[in-house]
């Protein structure tokens, strides 16, 4: 066997994991459907068809309609856009904040590190979801503010993981060698520390997306997230619950879309973890 670079080896290992590859394919399909699907469908997401209220799946409405006569498929795809947008944007926020906070604390070390981590510990003691709800109360229920709020809460674990990684890299001999060689600080950070951070960051980032989407859906379900007439998977599930005895498909389809997406994201994250960061202890998130 010829020798492979670590990246190639990770890719080989990832490819060998059917769950992860399946998750990646499903996500690709789902995201492109949400992105371009609505352009090909005749119904608008707010258009009401009073001749077809609470209808089951048919040729005209592939997944049926809701209590206001709106096409469920279009609403699901639009809702998917929101869910993905919130998921990725909030993860991005948490990634950036967590990366800088954790890397700075870990690299600086000493008193600064101690106080920064004590601050993070303090935030940890706060009731998580409750904080997000508080933030939505304060900043109103606009969905852009929503992902800022979620991102602002989710960065804590990211910061911890990055800090631990930076600390362990700092202890290693190749870094001490780089310092002894008198390399400038930015070069040490850029060339020696950052490349070693990507593994855990990518893995944890992937696992944060479903957690964020879950939080968004929970808030929307409670009516504290995305506001009607805009749709989101959380709202659609909530609407489905109100009519579930009458037309169960209104609950089943959003549930299916949502859960399959979360499942694929989790599979993808776990596959990436096994491939990129095999020794890590990063676990998937507990659901709310």
């Amino acid at each position, binding site marked *: 066997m010829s020798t492979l670079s670590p990246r190639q080896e990770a890719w080989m290992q990832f490819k060998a994991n059917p769950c992860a590859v399946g998750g990646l394919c499903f996500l690709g399909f789902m995201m492109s459907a949400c992105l371009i699907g609505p352009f090909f469908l005749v119904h608008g997401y707010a258009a009401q068809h009073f001749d077809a209220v609470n209808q089951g799946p048919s040729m005209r409405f592939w997944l049926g309609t809701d209590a206001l006569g709106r096409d469920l498929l279009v609403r699901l795809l639009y809702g998917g856009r929101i869910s993905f947008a919130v998921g990725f944007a909030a993860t991005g926020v948490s990634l950036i904040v967590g990366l800088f906070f954790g890397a700075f604390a870990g690299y600086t070390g000493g008193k600064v590190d101690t106080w920064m981590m004590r601050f993070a510990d303090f935030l940890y003691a706060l009731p998580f979801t409750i904080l997000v709800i508080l933030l*939505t109360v304060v*900043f109103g229920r606009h969905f852009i503010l929503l992902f800022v709020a979620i991102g602002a809460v989710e960065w804590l674990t990211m910061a911890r993981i990055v800090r631990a990684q930076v600390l362990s890299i700092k202890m290693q001999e190749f870094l001490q060698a780089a310092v002894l060689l008198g390399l400038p600080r930015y070069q040490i950070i850029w060339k020696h520390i950052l490349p070693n951070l990507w593994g855990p960051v990518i893995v944890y980032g992937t696992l944060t997306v479903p957690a964020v989407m879950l939080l968004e859906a929970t808030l929307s379900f409670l009516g504290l997230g995305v506001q009607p007439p805009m749709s989101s998977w959380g709202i659609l599930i909530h609407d489905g*619950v109100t009519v579930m*005895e009458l037309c169960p498909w209104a609950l089943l389809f959003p549930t299916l879309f949502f859960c399959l997406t979360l499942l694929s994201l989790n599979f993808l994250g776990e596959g990436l973890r096994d491939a990129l960061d095999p020794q890590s202890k990063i676990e998937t998130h*507990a659901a*709310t």
Partner: protein
Amino acid sequence: MLQLIIRRLLQAIPVLFLIATATFFLIHLAPGGPFHQERPLSPQVLEALNAHYGLNDPWIVQYGRYLNHLLHGELGPSYGHPGHTVNELIAQSLPVSIELGLWAWVFSLIVGIPLGVWAAEKQHRWFDRVCSTVSTLGLCLPTFVLGPLLMLGLAVGLGIGNVCGWGSWEDRLLPVLTLGLVHAAYVLRLTRGGMLEVLNQDFIRTARAKGLSGWTVLFKHALRGGLLSVVAFAGPQLSALVTGSFVVETIFHIPGLGRHFVQAAFNRDYTLILGTTLLYGALIIVMNLMADLMQAWLNPRLRVSML
């Protein structure tokens, strides 16, 4: 050990103070007052209400007054529930949330731990595969999906359990299942992971070399180490269950603290939000402390470093 408990409880005081301060100012930053409703009240009524609750005073005065009340254990009157104090509301609803959370907690541990141990023992066999797949699925089934599905399947379909209220045991069945199942999946994964890690260690080989039976090896030697991560998780989990039951309480119309909290968030019921947030913070601190003590009991190496 006592020293540790006292130290941790003393540390909790500034944390709670900070939570109180932060939430107080956050909420007062928010646009719209507690009496800012869809159908506006007449200016006179609004003025009278604001004056009655002292909302016209400067923030700093309101803050001082709130802290003073807090020191006396008073959380103030509820704006959203006229005639009730926050203390009363919490006294009514907290036991309900605690009971729900405890049942769900017990359920998740009773189901999750044995299945996790057994799955680890049977690694790579079909039982393990089924458990792992189902638990991964369970992680992706949030409570607000599982609750309605259980309602649809069990209550509507089979006639088991009730879909709302909190009186008889039939009322409790579905909420507890909803809340407990997701966490049971998580406990199962943690148990399995922890057990697998321990079962691969040298001292398990030593125990087997002594000719001990499989059960003794599993329960006496492996379980303790294997459950460490579960215990580390179980404390915060209990607080997460007690404080995180607002979705389930909303779905099943249970008169618990979480439902009050969600409604308070809708109604801008400042004092109730402050009170519940503080209480949640305190609950989390106490339960994390309990989890740490439990871990120390299980792991002798930690016992030394903690004291």
